[in-house]
């Protein structure tokens, strides 16, 4: 019934509702400009409000540079681990049948619905001085909380589901006939993954990695709890934004925020490109 005269029915080409349609589109565009675009544009407007030189001085301040470095290191450690986890989780859940699959998928999603603050509190009660492992860590002179390991661990928690969530549905939709054929032709497990599965999921994988990176770079609440926010030592770039804001250095806060916004914009452009590839 798809290509019948019905498709050319005047009511279906919707000329009668054109005014209503235009109002809806206008409303959608208008609200998005006010609600989503304005906050982004405002960051750059404020960051450059005192000119390029002040902007450059703010960005190149040693403490800001240190915060950027810390954020970069964190992302470099966290993203590859979560990519590996995402692949493993998707492979186990999508390509095999076993009891408890549904529960496993729900557990993977836990970090999505838990507040990052709660994640931070959880880690504090595990690795902190008053935490479960605190005495042992102290006896062995290891520091997790108020140091890089704590920041990395909380960021891993918060961003754990991102890659799995992108790759899992795709692997599920593609089924495993191709992989089974490869196995019967004598391919080893690693060969099957590299030659058959990976080419099929590579854009979704990259897309998940991009989202994971964006979130890892921007994580605030969880890191705020475990990092101690020591200036020039354990404050990541998002924490540094708050620090500058509390110092009443608004232009500096906006300059630091503008670099994070730029990363977000790059991530979104990459995502749009990858989505095109995924569909094509």
């Amino acid at each position, binding site marked *: 019934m798809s290509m019948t005269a019905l498709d050319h029915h005047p009511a279906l080409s919707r000329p009668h509702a054109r005014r209503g349609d235009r109002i809806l589109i206008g409303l959608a565009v208008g609200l998005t400009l006010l*609600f989503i675009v304005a906050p982004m544009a405002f960051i750059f407007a404020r960051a450059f409000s005192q000119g390029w030189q002040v902007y450059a001085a703010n960005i190149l301040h040693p403490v800001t540079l240190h915060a950027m470095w810390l954020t970069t290191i964190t992302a470099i450690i966290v993203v590859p681990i979560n990519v590996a986890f995402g692949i493993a989780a998707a492979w186990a859940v999508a390509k095999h049948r076993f009891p408890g699959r549904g529960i496993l998928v729900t557990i993977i999603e836990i970090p999505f*619905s838990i507040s990052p603050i709660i994640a931070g509190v959880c880690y504090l009660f595990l690795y902190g001085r008053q935490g479960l492992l605190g005495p042992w860590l102290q006896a062995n002179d290891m520091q997790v909380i108020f140091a890089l390991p704590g920041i990395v661990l909380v960021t891993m928690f918060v961003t754990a589901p991102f890659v799995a969530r992108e790759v899992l549905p795709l692997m599920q939709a593609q089924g495993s006939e191709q992989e089974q054929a490869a196995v019967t032709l004598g391919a080893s497990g690693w060969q099957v993954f590299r030659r058959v599965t990976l080419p099929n999921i590579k854009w979704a994988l990259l897309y998940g990695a991009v989202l994971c990176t964006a979130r890892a770079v921007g*994580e605030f609440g969880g890191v705020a709890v475990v990092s101690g926010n020591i200036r020039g030592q354990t404050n990541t770039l998002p924490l540094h934004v708050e620090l500058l804001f509390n110092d009443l250095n608004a232009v500096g806060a906006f300059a630091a925020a503008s670099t994070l916004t730029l990363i977000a914009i790059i991530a979104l452009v990459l995502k749009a490109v990858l989505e095109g590839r995924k569909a094509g």
Partner: protein
Amino acid sequence: MDPPFRAKRVLPGFTLSLGTTLLYLTLIVLIPVAALILKGAEIGPERFWRIVSSPRAVAAFRITLTAAAIATVFNAIYGLLMAWVLLRYEFRGKRILDALMDVPFALPTAVAGLSLTALFSANGWFGAVLHPAGIPVVYTIWGIALAMAFTSVPFVVRTVQPVLEDMDPALEQAAVTLGARPWAIFTRVVFPTILPAWLAGCTIAFARSLGEFGAIVFIAGNLPFQTEIAALLAFIRLEEFDYNGAAAIALVLLGFALVLLLVSNLLQYWAARYREDSR
């Protein structure tokens, strides 16, 4: 069928992949969450109740729930509108508009909070208009709701979109030929189909709003009994080295999050069943 195909697991790597997944989830998610629950158990029910029913904690929970409800109502409508417009119409700039729906995912929450605060304060673009009109947003519950709405809107859009995309056009065509008006088609045909997914999206958005922190600390003003949210109160208790207080409040928020996750998963399950039935 040949015996090899009957083998329970044809593909290799099951033990390795499941083992890795379980190990990682245990170390990164389950053990830390268990540490919080154990800490909570140490407090004892009586003291736990005293902490969470103290006037300041009750006020914080009330403010958090109210603001999250406001934000979710806004996102329920705005998110549905966006999902609808992005799928049903062709217009210039549509792809950009679609990409913009992911801004709240990609933009760090602290950056969003900083910008919204400045935007709505007296000398910001919006505050300059709203303040003289007697509508202060910053340092009120409306500011909290605004920050919550900004950070959680993609959850509604991205949950409704695929369901709307999958809808069988024959249903609507049938309604049109039967003489239904556009509004009737929407309320009687389209809306019932997307209802489970829409509710699931709103549930996740609500859960995110309850736990949001980064965007809110900037805009809220953080006055106890007025604009102090629960997540911030837990944070303040930590800074005061009141670990029992922090654990109790965090546990309540954790309970909310887990229940809402369960509800949203049940709704999504219902949605999947619903879609299969309507095909």
